[in-house]
């Protein structure tokens, strides 16, 4: 078994869905979450608050520095993610297809380091 992160990214300028548009997406994601929880695939997951809420902490130097804003000014940012456990990449890709359809966004698949 391998753990994979399925991440959903937002781009600057992506249209913001209206309340009516977002409702079926929420429902589809809920159904997907229920399914993978029931099948024992779900490890963790969730949607993130907007990127404006990000704070960056840097404690690599002499003193810890806390800065308002994301790690890097970027035109793309993480909107949410799942961590799943799947037998192999083939299975993870099949789940990513379902996840992408459910959340109406592109999904990036990356394996976690072993151990």
């Amino acid at each position, binding site marked *: 078994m391998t753990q994979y992160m399925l991440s959903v990214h937002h781009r600057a300028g992506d249209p913001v869905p209206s309340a009516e548009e977002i409702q079926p997406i929420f429902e589809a994601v809920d159904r997907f979450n229920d399914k993978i929880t029931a099948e024992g695939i779900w490890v963790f997951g969730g949607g993130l608050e907007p990127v404006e809420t990000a704070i960056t902490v840097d404690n690599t130097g002499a003193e810890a520095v806390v800065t308002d804003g994301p790690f890097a000014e970027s035109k793309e940012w993480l909107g949410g993610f799942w961590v799943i456990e799947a*037998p*192999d*990449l*083939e299975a993870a890709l099949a789940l990513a297809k379902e996840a992408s359809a459910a959340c109406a966004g592109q999904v990036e698949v990356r*394996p976690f380091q*072993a151990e």
Partner: protein
Amino acid sequence: MSVDEAIERIYREEYGRVVASLVRRFGDIDIAEEAAGEALLVAMERWPEDGVPPNPGGWLTTTAGRRAIDRIRRESHRDAKHQAALMIEDDTPHEPTGVVEDDRLRLIFTCCHPALAPEVRVALTLRLLGGLTVAEIAQAFLVPETTMAQRITRAKRKIKDANIPYRVPAPEDLTARLSGVLAVVYLVFNEGYLASSGGAPIREDLTAEAIRLGRILRTLLPDEPEVAGLLALMLLTESRRRTRVAGGELIPLHEQDRGGWDRDLIAEGHELVRECLARAMRTQRGPGQYQLLAAVNAVHTDAPAAGDTDWAQIAALYAQLYAIAPSPIVALNRAVAIAELDGPEVALAEVDRLQLTTYHAWHATRADLLRRLGRSAEARAAYDAAIAATENEAERGYLSRRRGSLAP
């Protein structure tokens, strides 16, 4: 042939089978490759004295398997003992696969997985299934050996880290995934058939390798029509190889010495095309792109002389191909047939609409049509553009000769 040469030939022929079997057993490409290499060393030591065993492939697999177990035992990985315990007895039943059980088939689907970049798929397939060395693959694709080694190492790591399975896809995914595998095999063939640059105009080693992979796929998936189509296409193209270059110049189809074509390959290719046609009729499933291209080549190889070519049939096949795979290159090929049917003027109008300005064959086709229309100055410019757009010396040689033969 010396014993060492015989061993090398056997090793290359058996390499894919040996490595694929070890990969299934040990679940690790690096272990499989190293063990196969060690088995070769043992063979080179023993075979000259003991003679080549009756089943050299089986001998190599068994020897390599023992070496791999020794290695796993020797190494002090924290899970080594556990792993070794699992591996000593190879009595685990094969995982049930979708369609056909064959280790090589599993491995080629791994090598051609869509999670890997296309150029990496080709390199991995040649390395693991074809048994080509990293140096040979680097040479074939004109990159430094270190670059190719790095590319292959990264790909193997990705297979391991992302846990890309060694498995034939499920039947519902097979057709889609198979087209990726066929594309890799055809790419290998084309690189051999018309080397994009470098010294040799035709790389026989690559065309032969692609045909060998095509034959393996055909044995493993006898009911997949596109597999038969691709093999037929490669065989019929290969049948003309000996006549394609003379005096360092590429010889176009209509000037080739048809007596020099390989009749055995043609017979085999035609048989496959007939089989594809019969199946298409029976199943009411239209032929795919490789079958159509094979049919085009069957029409060419059927004509005793260039003048006997059934151009109407060829134009119809390209039109059919365009309907399923609309690309300007298919349209260009159709235009060549149109030139024979309706004359160069009609064809030129079609060719000019395509504007494939970076493609040497587009310029070369225009040049030839303009020459036939007596528009020498324009033809000369088109030949110049075609010569500038190709790195293949033999093709440049041919284009230069045509350019030189234009009326002033």
